[in-house]
């Protein structure tokens, strides 16, 4: 298949990239990347983390200038000097690492850099709010108040605002970089995509979720190690073939059989837990068991997980571990009780960007790698290498700043930090958010190994397929309560969806 090219019949491509090359010193981020997007087409960009997708997005957004190669938009050379230049040429991007300013209002974020001015040339809050409100309404997110601060929004709302902002520039070519990473209900976006394509807007769609890509896109270009491997007709190409192109080898494990349910003794036991957005939640996670949690956005899963991690106050109920009541008043006590928490937002809540990878991982065990009061680099390196094996984190990354690692490797390091702490009960909030297929497999493997050694794991994921694939059984949270539980052959995506949308009767 390599080298074959499908193209939209007859239509002249709106965006044409030929032989794009970009190197950072010795590291070649993009090499001879060629792709085209027709007007009114949703074109998928597929590839693992580190394949060069982000660099391509940066080039299209005008943030990075390619070393070689040509870019054409609507038949004219496209050489934006910066973000504004790209927008002026009709190319607008919704970034994966959201680029909103958290301390400013939704309205200001949407209107910048050209705030509407009132009397005397001073930016008028009222006019900007009206304009922002109209924009939000137009794209169907009237639940967001244009006056609220970005920092006060949920991650999903931030992602929507980010997308609406890109739409507000009325692009002729829209770049969506992992637009559904934080959205549990992508239907909203799909409608917008349909509306835009009907208007002739070209969309470059980047997502790790193949099901989603298949639904939206007819054609896709696969990147691997900075090269465009092929542009394929997605309808005629099976998943295994796409995975093969992405990782270079066949990845049959991706369709791993659902593991068997095991009869186990309860390890983590939650009784009548209540708090902000969570009502009377009870469940158990057994030894050697992976319990999934499925929910639409904002159904209380986030506070539930944060309560277990000691980050949110608990108003009623109790959590016990191995029969002993767990102290969840702070993260430190929760950790001492045996709960290892993996947070949702890797960059802000998870890793320490300024520290080396090894220092990130060894943080919970600093006392254990000391000799004579001082940290022994050798003992630290050994401990990190040992846990690194569990998550397939190469040793050579240890001495590098974690900010230099790809998102997937950062996530592996974060999971390594949780594992190394010695916690016997993992509480993982969307552990594979925004990571590539290969890293996902590694993370699944690490979780399975962990429970096989007698631990327990509670895993929330926005991807239902992942839960079906990974969990022994799955809880569905709806409106702050457990709406149901599925296990064995009953654990299917369809049933999860009906429970998660409040149609428990259909799942029975």
């Amino acid at each position, binding site marked *: 298949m390599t080298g074959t090219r499908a193209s939209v019949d007859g239509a002249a491509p709106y965006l044409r990239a030929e032989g794009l090359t970009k*190197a*950072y*010193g*010795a*590291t070649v981020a993009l090499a001879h990347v060629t792709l085209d997007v027709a007007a009114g087409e949703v074109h998928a960009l597929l590839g693992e983390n580190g394949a060069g997708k982000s660099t391509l997005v940066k080039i299209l957004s005008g943030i990075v200038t390619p*070393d070689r190669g040509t870019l054409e938009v609507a038949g004219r050379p496209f050489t934006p000097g910066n973000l504004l230049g790209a927008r002026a040429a009709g190319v607008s991007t919704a970034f994966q690492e959201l680029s909103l300013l958290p301390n400013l209002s939704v309205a200001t974020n949407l209107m910048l850099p050209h705030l509407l001015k009132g009397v005397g040339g001073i930016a008028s809050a009222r006019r900007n709010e009206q304009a922002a409100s109209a924009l939000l309404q137009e794209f169907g997110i009237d639940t967001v108040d244009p006056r609220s601060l970005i920092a006060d929004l949920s991650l999903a709302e931030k992602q929507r605002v980010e997308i609406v902002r890109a739409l507000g520039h009325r692009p002729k070519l829209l770049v969506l970089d992992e637009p559904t990473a934080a959205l549990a209900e992508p239907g909203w976006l799909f409608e917008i995509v349909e509306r835009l394509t009907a208007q002739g807007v070209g969309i470059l769609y980047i997502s790790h979720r193949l099901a989603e890509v298949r639904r939206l896109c007819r054609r896709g270009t696969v990147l691997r190690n900075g090269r465009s491997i092929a542009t394929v007709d997605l309808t005629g190409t099976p998943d295994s073939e796409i995975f093969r192109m992405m990782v270079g080898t066949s990845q049959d494990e991706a369709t791993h059989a659902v593991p068997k349910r095991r009869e186990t003794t309860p390890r983590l036991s939650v009784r009548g837990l209540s708090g902000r957005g969570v009502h009377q939640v009870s469940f158990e996670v057994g030894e050697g068991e992976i319990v999934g949690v499925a929910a639409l956005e904002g159904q209380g899963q986030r506070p539930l997980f944060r309560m277990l*991690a*000691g*980050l949110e106050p608990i108003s009623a109920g109790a959590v016990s571990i191995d029969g002993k009541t767990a102290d969840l008043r*702070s*993260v*430190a006590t*929760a*950790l001492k009780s045996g709960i290892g*928490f993996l*947070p949702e937002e890797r960059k*802000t*809540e*998870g*890793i*320490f*960007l*300024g*520290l*080396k990878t090894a*220092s990130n991982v*060894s*943080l*919970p065990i*600093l*006392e254990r790698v*000391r000799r004579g*009061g*001082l*940290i022994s680099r050798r003992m630290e390196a050994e401990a990190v290498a040992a846990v690194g094996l569990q998550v397939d984190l190469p040793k050579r990354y240890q*001495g*590098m*700043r974690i*900010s*230099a*690692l790809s998102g997937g490797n950062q996530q592996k390091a974060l999971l390594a*930090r949780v594992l190394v702490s010695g916690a016997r009960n993992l509480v993982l909030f969307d552990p594979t958010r925004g990571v590539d297929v290969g890293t996902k497999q590694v993370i699944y493997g690490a979780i399975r190994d962990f429970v096989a050694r007698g631990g327990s794991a509670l895993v929330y994921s926005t991807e239902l397929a992942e839960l079906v694939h990974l969990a022994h059984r799955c809880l569905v949270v709806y409106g702050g309560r457990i709406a149901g539980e599925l296990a064995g052959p009953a654990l299917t995506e369809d049933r999860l969806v009906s429970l998660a949308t409040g149609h428990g009767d259909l799942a029975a």
Partner: protein
Amino acid sequence: MSQANPAPPPLIDTRTSGRALGSEVVTPLVLFGLTVLLVIASRWISPSLGGLHQVSAIIVLSAFLMVVAFGQQMVVLIGGLDLSIPSLVTLGGILTYAWTTQSGWSFIWILPAALVVTGCVGALSGAGVAWLRIPPFIMTLAMGIIVYSASLGITAGTPRGHASPALASLFTGRILDLPPIIYLMVIFVIFCTLLQSSTPFGRRLYALGTSPTAAHVAGLPVGRLTVATYAISAAAAGGAGFLLVGYAGGATLTMGQSYLLPSVAAVVVGGTSILGGRGNYVSAVAASLLLTTFSTIISSVQILEGWRTIIYGLVILVAIGALREDLPLWFSRLMQRPAPRQPAPLVASDSK
């Protein structure tokens, strides 16, 4: 032919710079180098400068700055700023002066006592920052004013006490022809460097400074770390006051005043990120030496005081401008491959 087709300027990828020569090596080297150059150049200004004697005098003079800069740096590492340093230098000095008895060796217990008192004041500032969420510079500014006013009230403007000959001998005595304080400072610098880089406490400080949110989620004792850091900064200032009493033979209410801006300058010129999480003590020590050398030389030149301060300010600006993040990058690029415009002499002679 190679000149006809010049290679693009080498770019250093940020993804690989983690392995290149890091700023923790380059910054102190550059600063030490500049200090040495400055000392050598100073001979040209006045023949009395530039000798070994002057070098030893500069190190002694910079000791006080090194000590306060350590405290300031710890606070800056967690993203704060300590403006109470001058008052705590004064408090440490007043206490030392007041407690000293004629018996001579009393400073053995005075030092820990002064450190504990000033450390407790710092812990209060830290508690205000950590639990009352008062912005660091407001909290420490207020604490500084309170401590200064209390010192003023209790001493009625004139601190009383005794000079300690034993303490003074740290500066006047000679071990292998050098004053003992120099050896003490070497030990101090090693101790502080290890505290920062190789203890769980130090590691957690960097983590907290890099990302307070992630530190909270990771279960680090954020409150206690903050309190301890401000306590250390205050105790360092108190320790500097203690040393100053030995050097000057007395205490005054203004003895700490000249250390606020230099403490910040030493930390920032030493490449510590004012946003927290990045920096190391050796660089701050090198910056203290450079700044002290510079002010020593400039004060020996016959110009108006105003011009001196203006030049001092300019030097700090230039140093900070030159020592930004890209300096190590630039430096390691220089080490890795020759600049593209330089002709390669070997190839040129071969072709002939």
